[in-house]
């Protein structure tokens, strides 16, 4: 029983991380209509930039600056490569493009920082277990949960109360009308893409505290985030958040009884959702049904 509670808790913490990735993905998917396969790549950039910056800015400085830089890089990529593809209605083009970008980022990282894994040191204050009995709840993991919650709330406030957020939401529901009302949708989409990448960058810095840095580190983290979006519902940010938590929890519970299936179970959930409720828990009708 203790084992089950431990693993369920751990699954939730893991789920929070998936949710953070999924939020960025969902943001880009809904306004830019791009299935961003390069999201894991932006995560890697975020992690490596933090590694390079932390000797100068410290961990805390890197935690703030690195995601912002990733957002800027994301906007640049959007301007140069993604934007020319908006005209083509088939989402396959941008999917292939971002898949290519993912490969380029992985190889560039390897060229710049080398294939050798690198350690990102995190401050001692958050780098120890909170209690010896619940040893897997470390200060760092709680910190990850807190940062994710802050980021999600920040995003909610931005979308709910700022002009930019209102425009983004308007763009999501009807891009043409928004454009006709005089909003520069190109700039809007660029900013939105940047925001999405910023979330990936933030996830990267946070991941680097638990994992060693390697060029392909984004690959294993990106798939569960896609699943989170599908389970939670395409187009819904709340869905992305809950989807991440659900699959994390499911994986955690499964691992107690049958560890080998802990990865398979998230795809099983995706399958069930697609069969019973293709739009996902909070998705809009019409995307898949």
């Amino acid at each position, binding site marked *: 029983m*203790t*084992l089950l509670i*431990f*693993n369920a808790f*751990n699954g939730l913490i*893991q789920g929070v991380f998936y949710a953070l990735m999924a939020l960025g993905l969902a943001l880009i998917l809904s306004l830019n209509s791009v299935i961003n396969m390069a999201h894991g790549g932006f995560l890697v950039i975020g992690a490596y930039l933090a590694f390079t910056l932390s000797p100068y800015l410290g961990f805390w400085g890197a935690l703030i600056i690195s995601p912002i830089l990733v957002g800027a890089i994301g906007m640049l990529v959007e301007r140069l490569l993604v934007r020319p593809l908006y005209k083509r209605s088939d989402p396959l083009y941008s999917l292939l493009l971002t898949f290519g970008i993912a490969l380029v980022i*992985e*190889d560039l990282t*390897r060229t710049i920082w*080398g*294939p*050798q*894994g*690198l*350690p*990102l*040191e*995190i401050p001692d204050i958050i*780098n*120890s*277990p909170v209690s*010896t009995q619940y*040893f*897997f709840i*470390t200060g*760092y993991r709680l910190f990850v949960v807190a940062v994710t919650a802050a980021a999600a709330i920040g995003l909610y406030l931005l979308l709910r109360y700022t002009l930019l957020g209102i425009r983004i939401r308007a763009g999501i529901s009807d891009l043409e009308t928004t454009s006709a009302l005089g909003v520069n949708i190109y700039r809007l989409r660029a900013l939105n893409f940047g925001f999405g990448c910023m979330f990936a960058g933030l996830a990267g810095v946070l991941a680097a505290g*638990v*994992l*060693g*840095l*390697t*060029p*392909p*580190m984004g690959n*294993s*983290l990106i798939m569960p985030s896609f699943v989170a979006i599908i389970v939670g519902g395409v187009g819904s940010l709340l869905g992305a958040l809950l989807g991440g938590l659900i699959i994390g929890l499911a994986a*955690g519970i499964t*691992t*107690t009884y049958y*560890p*080998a299936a*802990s*990865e398979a179970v998230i795809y099983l959930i995706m399958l069930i959702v697609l069969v019973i409720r293709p739009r996902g828990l909070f998705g809009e009708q019409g995307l898949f049904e």
Partner: protein
Amino acid sequence: MLPKITRRLLVQTGAVLGASTVFAPAKLAFGQGDVPIKVGMHDPLTGTYAAEGDSEVRGAKMALAEINAKGGMLGRKVELVVEDDSANAGLAAQKAHKLLEKDGCAFLMGAVSSATALSVNQVAHDKKVLYMVTGGHTDPVTGSQCHWTTFRVCTTTYMLAAGLAGTLYKKFGGKWYFITPDYAFGHTLQEAYAKLLKGMGGTVLGNSLSPLGTTDFTSFLIKAQQSKPDVLINLCDGQDLVNSMKQAAQFGLMKQFPIGGGLSELEVLAALPKEAKVGWWTLEWWWDQPNTPHVGDWVSNYQKTYNDRSYPSARTWFGYAGLHAIALGVAKANSLESHKVARALEGLELPSEIKLQPNRVYFRPGDHQLMSSEFPGEIIQDGTYPHLFKVADIVPGEKIALSEKETGCKLDYQA
């Protein structure tokens, strides 16, 4: 209009043809000497073992430069063709075919992942080409699945376990929990450890299989912690080892029980943050051997070749010794034919400037396994690169390897 064949044209043609036969043989002989001998190397340059793969390629390139400086193989220049296998068994087999069929390589070498060593082992045998495994440790490569074509530089998983099991048992006790990477390398290593442990009278408390490339080791660590082991045996390697150790350190598990493992490597040690630099491991080669001849020179030669302040690892040595061994075999056989080279390599002892370790190092004739040493020891917690490991002992390979009979290897030379 047909060209008119005059007598003059006929004579001219004849002269040219005659002259060509005079020059041609000389030119042909020169041309043959000019055709390089290709050695195909497969290693992961991407993915979880990319750092290890890179080191093996670096080592092989050092050997390549030395071999060519001394006139190559049988007077012909040697070329190394490197392919990325991403530590994927299927891809490695595909690349092995490509190296043989498209590039025309005379020999194969490489592997970090045991899974790729096993798949290329099969391809090389089908194609009757000598294959020098540099770094896939699983027992069957020179055991139940051994072939006359395959030789191996790195030690077996059994040797890795046997080099350290006794020390761990004596120091910490006999209740062990295992975290094992879920593929050939992990399985055979865990079996070897379990066998040795039971032989000494200890018990296996449990064994968690972690898929290669696992990022979150928490659930395995929770189970390990619940079992209250005397020692946690972490058999992961590469990036998986880095991630699992990093997480174990953050959970404070290092304060609850000692951690030991199978294999560690300089590449892994370098990637560990300070709090995770703990435990007892086995290395297969170490750069700091002040009393062994040639090692210091070799290390400084490495640093001249690769001017990036890095140090050579066991992997570098595998690549280096592997290509040199092929060249030594070719020279001894005076042939490029794989079966002759294979026969020449059996029992061949590596000279001290290549073996770079104190004990006798040779290819055992019965299973083609190189008898090289294990370097068990402890990680230095506040060590800085490259002073990260304290070697406790250098154990000769022949002392800890299973006997040729026990490996289950029957070499399948055709009569």
